[in-house]
């Protein structure tokens, strides 16, 4: 980790035999998943089945929870992210996260986006300006906010705030973007905007998205993985999963028998 330009050799991610315990409770049971670079991978499944927990292992946000114990490996581009040599801050620079409830900081739009670059040492105004504008463009929100960059981010609508959070994560130049049910709190129009956004982003950033919304997965995901009770029951191309699921449980979930 000698340089802030350090990046994973590729943004292909692999979880091998990943098990996670919260104290005595086993939240993830030997999860195996390969996430291909420059694709959208969706994690679907009923509530409480480990999707979000799994997502949070990918940027080590579970480190924050006491009593959390993890076995197995997560490798990005071949690099073990739980190795001792891994700098967690740099990991989170390269693996960004957007939360279910938009959480812009109580600051100006500009300062929200500039937060990550500033954390990583960029101080010059011209550089920051360029990054802020580029990130807002990448998140398809620049035109809407370009005249009010100094105003509070809290004044934006819910959908705008979520796109702002995406822009904020993009400002750190991530290789992978993790999204935890990013549209579940939003109206259909904002949802559609964000789905379009993700479809264009994937060529630049590998996307892993947790979603409750099967139609959303069908619309935007290249690969889908079905989580049930802490394990991956089945995963594959979205078309295969939805048209020809091999496991009965997958079929029941997709056809709405439970969930």
């Amino acid at each position: 980790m000698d340089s802030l330009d350090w990046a994973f050799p590729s943004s292909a991610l692999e979880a091998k035999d990943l098990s996670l315990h919260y104290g005595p409770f086993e939240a993830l049971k030997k999860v195996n998943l390969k996430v291909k670079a420059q694709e959208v991978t969706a994690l679907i499944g009923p509530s409480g089945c480990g999707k979000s927990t799994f997502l949070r292992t990918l940027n080590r946000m579970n480190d924050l929870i006491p009593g959390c114990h993890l076995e197995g490996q997560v490798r990005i581009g071949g690099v073990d992210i739980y190795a001792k040599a891994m700098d967690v801050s740099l990991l989170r620079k390269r693996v960004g996260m957007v939360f279910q409830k938009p959480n812009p900081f109580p600051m100006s739009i500009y300062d929200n986006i500039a937060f990550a670059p500033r954390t990583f040492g960029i101080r010059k105004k011209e550089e920051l300006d360029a990054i802020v504008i580029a990130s807002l463009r990448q998140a398809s929100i620049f035109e809407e906010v370009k005249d009010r960059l100094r105003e509070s981010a809290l004044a934006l609508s819910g959908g705008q705030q979520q796109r702002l959070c995406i822009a904020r994560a993009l400002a750190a130049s991530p290789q992978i973007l993790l999204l935890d049910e990013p549209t579940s709190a939003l109206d259909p129009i904002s949802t559609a905007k964000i789905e379009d956004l993700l479809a264009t982003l994937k060529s630049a950033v590998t996307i892993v998205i947790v979603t409750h919304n099967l139609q959303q997965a069908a619309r935007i995901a290249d690969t889908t993985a079905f989580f049930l009770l802490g394990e991956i029951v089945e995963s594959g191309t979205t078309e295969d999963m939805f048209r020809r699921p091999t496991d009965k449980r997958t079929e029941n979930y997709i056809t709405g028998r439970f969930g």
Partner: protein
Amino acid sequence: MPTSSLRYRTFREKAMKGLFFLSAAFSLLALGAIIAYLFASGIPFIAKVGFFSFFFSTTWAPLATIPQYGVFAMVLTTLYVTALSVAIGASIGLLAAICLFRFVPSRFVTPLRWLIDLLAGIPSVIYGLFGLIVIVPFIRDYVSTNGMGYGILAASLVLSIMILPTMVSVSYDALKAVSPLYYEGALALGASREEATFKIVLPAAKSGIFAGLVLSSGRALGETMAVIMVIGGSPQLPVSLTESVRTLTANIAMGASELTSDALSALVATGVVLFVFALILNLSFSFLRGKESGHV
């Protein structure tokens, strides 16, 4: 029978309501009485002595042959003591609160808070005693350049310890009230735990913390006993940290044995000044607290 008991009941309801109302109005009455007595004695006196002479003269000698009543030295001392004690106590208290909030393992937090709250109940005379027996000699022997231990430094040190529990408590509550989503969001962007806490959570808590500052200032401003035991008591202009001086509160307490009617009015006038200062601080605190809960 039923009609009269109904009438009795209605009478009882009305009477009790009236009684309750009178009790509630008693606060208004009490405040009114306090303001009336103080201002009735104090304001005419200030007018008699002359506004500028009272506030800006530096000579306080109520028992001299030609009495003089200038509180400037005391106002200055009060401001210095309040400012210094808040500067020391509030910054240490705020940092301590941040530590409790973020860097202390959770099983220690409640017992530590409980300990600090318990210590908040120590009576102010005991702080004064500690100041007199420990802090004053320490300053005199190791810090002072003029051989005195009393003065602004001693009083500020004592008061800063006194306001620590308030500051820690209020700041901790303000930090706790900040949505944890902000902290998580900052971490997910690559900030370290310390960066996320100081750069995002702390600024988000600033109105609650500021309210705590104002509350602590009010305590420091209004404190009497702890101060009179360590500050010296001479009504002279403060020019150094270690010389005998007095605050407005000390002025009132120390003059309590001077009983000429003019001297008494002078004390009341001092009380009026103090009352107004405290009122300003108190109203700002209420205003700030109202603003903050408006956000929540």
